[in-house]
């Protein structure tokens, strides 16, 4: 794929790495130079709003997943368990608290600055609240809440939108106090304009997976390609990144190349990846020529592919809508239906659910989803279980058996149908 004749191949990964490294550099150097630091979650992150006040942004989840990829999470989780955290709670929380206990050295070796603003963007997962309450305890910094009502009725209610907008206005006052900078509406308009541009490009990349074969793996590759839209959104370099990344995808389309040598099965994947065994997991599926053409995890921090954009003409309202519609904030029936739609839109052969033991937010209800996919819509569905952060739960032999059996039977079915 990265042969000489291709100009852009590999650029999505490379540029992403560079951008993240310089972001971590910037964070490390924020010590004592007057720049203010905000901690927040990826889902429902109000990066645009905070950039008005020039906050540097830290995302504890991104640190946790990076620790997972770099195989640091096992030790960090043990550190948290040493101080009393149960083996049964969210692995991300333990990974992060382990990191704080170990001197707040991030996954890339950078020491991370303490939060000036600990902003709990409570967007679906209740563990978020417990997580930031714990950070508030360890950092001795007060927690500021941005409460995002769950989409319990299957859609945005006007009262929910108003509640979020009202909280944003209150938050502006808090941010002004912390940073000494005024809330500047024009600046927010400008920032949301950058966001919308980047979002357009990101959606083009996601939609490219409708091609056959798909030029892009919407799970195993998307989890890297999505990083800038989550952590750098609103900055011009974010848009630049997606322009470059789109070139890579276009080139793949033009030359009929894709993430695997030969696409045999198109699947939709639900659930976060097993970060400490990311490669191994991918290999288990690649072996069967599996390409993920859509996934829910790539929507945790924003769901744009059915039309939503940050809107410079109504920035606060659109930020509220963005928070309300992140994947983590969708009700279970909405999630189920979204995955079903993806299977249809992207012409997938199956749905694969990676159920994460320590993440009840995602996993409770997945067995039921599977049941519905199979019974109601006749979509073959595989449910496998491990963890997103805790390497102890990845049983490779067991996973291989389940995956092999599933795709063997799909292959068999196909042969019978063709015959």
């Amino acid at each position: 794929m990265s042969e000489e004749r291709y100009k852009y191949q590999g650029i999505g990964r490379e540029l992403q790495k560079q951008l993240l490294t310089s972001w971590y550099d910037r964070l490390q150097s924020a010590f004592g130079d007057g720049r203010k630091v905000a901690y927040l979650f990826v889902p429902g992150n109000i990066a645009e709003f905070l950039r008005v006040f020039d906050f540097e942004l830290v995302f504890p989840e991104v640190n946790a997943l990076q620790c997972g990829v770099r195989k640091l999470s096992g030790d960090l989780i043990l550190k948290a368990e040493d101080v009393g955290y149960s083996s049964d709670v969210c692995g991300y929380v333990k990974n992060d608290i382990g990191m704080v206990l170990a001197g707040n050295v991030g996954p890339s070796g950078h020491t991370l600055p303490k939060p000036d603003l600990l902003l709990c963007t409570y967007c679906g997962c209740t563990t978020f609240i417990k997580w930031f309450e714990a950070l508030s305890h360890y950092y001795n910094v007060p927690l500021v809440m941005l409460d995002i009502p769950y989409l319990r009725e299957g859609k945005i209610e006007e009262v929910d939108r108003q509640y979020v907008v009202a909280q944003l206005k209150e938050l502006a006052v808090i941010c002004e106090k912390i940073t000494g900078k005024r809330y500047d509406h024009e600046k927010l308009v400008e920032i949301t304009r950058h966001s919308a541009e980047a979002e357009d490009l990101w959606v083009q990349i996601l939609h490219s997976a409708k091609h056959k074969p798909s030029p892009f793996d919407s799970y195993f590759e998307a989890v890297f390609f999505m990083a800038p839209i989550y952590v750098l959104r609103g900055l011009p370099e974010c848009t630049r990144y997606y322009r470059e990344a789109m070139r890579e995808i276009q080139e793949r389309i033009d030359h009929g190349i894709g993430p695997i040598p030969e696409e045999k099965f198109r699947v939709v994947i639900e659930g976060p990846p097993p970060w400490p065994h990311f490669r191994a997991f991918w290999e288990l599926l690649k072996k069967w020529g599996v390409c993920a053409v859509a996934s829910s995890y790539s929507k945790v921090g924003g769901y744009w592919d059915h039309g939503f954009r940050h809107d410079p003409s109504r920035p606060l309202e659109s930020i509220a809508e963005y928070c309300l519609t992140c994947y983590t904030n969708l009700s279970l029936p909405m999630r189920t239906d979204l995955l079903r739609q993806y299977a249809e839109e992207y012409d997938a052969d199956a749905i694969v659910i990676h159920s994460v033991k320590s993440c009840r937010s995602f996993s409770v209800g997945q067995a039921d989803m599977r049941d519905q996919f199979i019974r109601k819509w006749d979509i073959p569905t595989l449910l496998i279980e491990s963890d997103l952060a805790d390497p102890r739960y990845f049983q490779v032999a067991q996973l291989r058996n389940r995956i092999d059996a599933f795709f063997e039977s799909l292959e068999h079915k196909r042969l019978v149908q063709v015959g």
Partner: protein
Amino acid sequence: MMTFEENIEQYRSIIDDVSLPTVREWKSKHLAGKVVGMFPVYTPFELPHAAGMLPVGVYGAGGKVEIDHADSRIQSFVCSIARSTLELGLRGMLNELDVLWFPSICDVARNLSGVWKPNVPNQHVEYIHFPQNMMSAAAPVYYRAELQRLLGNLQSLAGQEISRDALNRSIHQFNRNRELSRTLYRIKSVTPWLLSTYEAYVLMRLGTLIPVEEHNRILQNVLPEIQNRNPKPRDYVRVMLEGGFCEQPPLELMQVIEEAGCYIVNDDLLLHTRWFEEPVPVTDDPLLSLAEAYIHRSRYSSVRHYGNKPRKEQFLEKIRENNVDGVIFCAPKFCEPALLDYVLLKDESEKQSINYLTFEYEEKMGTFESIRTQVETFVESVMFFS
């Protein structure tokens, strides 16, 4: 006339019966009456009450049924109350409940509300998003609207308007109930030898299954009876239980703790009965009154964000108010809110040199002997070394 002890045993048989005998009885007397089941920890029971409905606590199966069907729906790494509640639903054992309310206490309860819909299609399910931004001026407005939404749905179900006066009458009844519960808890704290936690629990749990007026009458009658008992005070250590706010521990577990030498002078069991520590004001806008009470005057709990006063401070206040010798952290297995808070509260206990003991429970526990031994050792260490 039955003695106090005999009454308690009769109530116990009611709360042990998962076929909901009191609810069936109520329905036989109120033929068109609707019942609203409420998952813990707290839901606004004033609303169904004002609509002439019966609000009923749904606390799982307490180990009384085998989990056969729910296992294929909810993974094994989830607390027992969620799995056994779903089991009851799948077996049709909650069919007496016309509506089921799930509050936003944790990811499990939230998703359970979603799992419910396709699995128990004839039951109306509501998920209530409680406000978590206690500092926002917009929170009462938001939560008032959420209450209005719930009320609207109850109105359609009842086929009639629910008046402001009816809501205020309900608030009044539940204020009375909270006041009586407070008195009961005060007895347990000041003179714990007069009333065991087992007895207090049975009395309070009964209240989740019968109309509030009836429960008020029962409490009113038993309070003087309790005051008139005269067992000898024992040389027990005074402990507080923390962690059982949602899934309830087996009754045997409470008995074992007490038999091992503890007076449980405070706990967070059946928390909804003591959710508001002051009366909810009766005003022109009862929904706003309930909303403001939730935001400004709720008791601390792991499933409600605390606003400007960290939970650990409120936890310490409870310890001091009740003159506690030690804390027993006992949380349901797999209960994330309790297990995550445990570390912070335990740290605070260490900082303040407060003794503590920790264990987990499940609805279905085979034996309590190892817990008995742990509690006995704890009691000894508190008595002799501190």
